[in-house]
């Protein structure tokens, strides 16, 4: 018999009671990073009222699903739309459905005026800046000349103003040997959290396909990060990503299922919805289709939700309840988002 629960899917389709949006307010960027998952910077951008409408759609869905929301605002470089972004932050600050948001930025446009504005953002949890190396040589090769200095300046400015700062590094063969040095540098700067994302050769990043780490290289790096995590309190190393659980299967605070199809969506500057920014398959437009229609009807999401669909070693893995691999890496490398994670060493 059917039972109309407040949110039966909370426990059945997705974990507990959270929902995460990655919201790209622009694709414009003042950097031309070699590994960028964008291939264009010309996507249509929405007006302030349209952005407000999206927020209302999100709030309605969260209320219906009885879930608490969080957002990562990003781009492109999100501070290129500083006025619109600050307006949006003010709206989220007043929203009853959202607990916090992060801003993911390259840090280059952070100045004193912006820092003062951000101090008023009451639900800002942390500002995440991207850094690809511990020296200008390693970093600037990927992110462009002068970017290391700008990023370090941004980190210092944010820390001086009391913000929680996170650093994320996209790892490939061009920088993975530098991880320990990056962590030493971040420790000196008082950075709060550190995470790595595996390079997904999408968009401009396709040109770096040869720089993808092999499975054994990923294993060595994740083992190192797990070891450093035990020693390092600051920065706190975040390891809630697929494959980490292979390093320490019994550690419940290590590794996580990919959130695609479970409790996350990506909103693009024109309202297009992706399962994940690194899995750039359009599954609808939030303004035209609404969230319910996309979340309940997308075949891509339903394919991914059903673990029986996973292929190769992901489909036979004894850690399937903890991992399932990264669907975006599988898609970028093989063209099949249900293929096994090509960087898994299990």
């Amino acid at each position, binding site marked *: *018999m*059917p039972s109309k629960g407040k949110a039966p899917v909370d426990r*059945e389709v997705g974990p507990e009671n959270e929902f995460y949006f990655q919201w790209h307010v622009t694709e414009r960027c003042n950097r031309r990073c070699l590994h960028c998952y964008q291939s264009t910077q010309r996507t249509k951008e929405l007006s302030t009222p349209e952005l407000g409408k999206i927020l209302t759609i999100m709030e*309605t869905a969260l209320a*219906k699903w009885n879930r608490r929301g969080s957002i990562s605002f990003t781009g492109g470089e999100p501070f290129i739309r500083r006025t619109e972004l600050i307006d949006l932050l003010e709206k989220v600050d007043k929203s009853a459905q959202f607990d916090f948001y992060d801003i993911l930025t390259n840090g280059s446009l952070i100045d004193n005026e912006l820092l003062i504005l951000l101090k008023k953002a009451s639900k800002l949890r942390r500002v995440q800046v991207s850094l690809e190396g511990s020296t200008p040589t390693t970093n600037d090769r990927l992110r462009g000349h002068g970017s290391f200095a700008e990023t370090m300046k941004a980190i210092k400015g944010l820390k001086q103003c009391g913000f929680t700062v996170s650093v994320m590094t996209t790892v490939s063969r061009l920088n993975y040997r530098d991880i320990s040095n990056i962590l030493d540098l971040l420790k000196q700067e008082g950075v709060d959290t550190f995470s790595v994302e595996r390079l997904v050769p999408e968009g401009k990043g396709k040109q770096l396909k040869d720089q993808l780490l092999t499975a054994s290289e990923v294993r060595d790096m994740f083992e190192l990060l797990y070891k450093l995590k035990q020693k390092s309190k600051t920065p706190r190393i975040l390891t809630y990503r697929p494959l980490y659980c292979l390093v320490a299967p019994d550690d419940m605070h290590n590794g996580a299922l990919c959130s695609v199809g479970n409790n996350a969506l990506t909103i693009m500057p024109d309202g297009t919805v992706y399962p994940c920014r690194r899995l750039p398959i359009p599954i609808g437009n939030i303004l035209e289709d609404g969230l*319910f229609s996309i979340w309940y009807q997308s075949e891509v999401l339903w394919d991914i939700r*059903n*673990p*029986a669909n996973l292929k190769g070693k992901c489909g036979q893995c004894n850690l399937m309840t903890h991992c399932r691999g990264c669907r975006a890496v599988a898609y970028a490398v093989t063209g099949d988002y249900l293929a096994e994670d090509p960087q898994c060493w299990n």
Partner: protein
Amino acid sequence: MLELRPDTILTLAPQIVLHSIPDQEWYFAFNITTGDQFRLNRTSYWVLEQINGGVEYSTLMRSVLNIFEVPENQGSQDLKQLINKLIRQKIIRRQADAKKEDTVSKTRRRKAK
């Protein structure tokens, strides 16, 4: 109890979509407009699959009795209860009701213009 005649045609409500992952025992009906979600058991889901696209009540009843080994009286009573619950929850509707609802909404739309 709503009246269910043998020739009553049942259909899925227009905003309802069905999804299942049988290996996980997940059976759901979703309303893509309101966002309502309904967790179902396998039998209810099977009944909704039969109704999807439209089916006469008598045909549905025969299918139920053929598939599930239950006495006719018991099967008939259980199906009636289930159908009534699904109608109350706006997951399915009687075609006659659907026509009335569509006429009402058309009239409302005309008046609004």
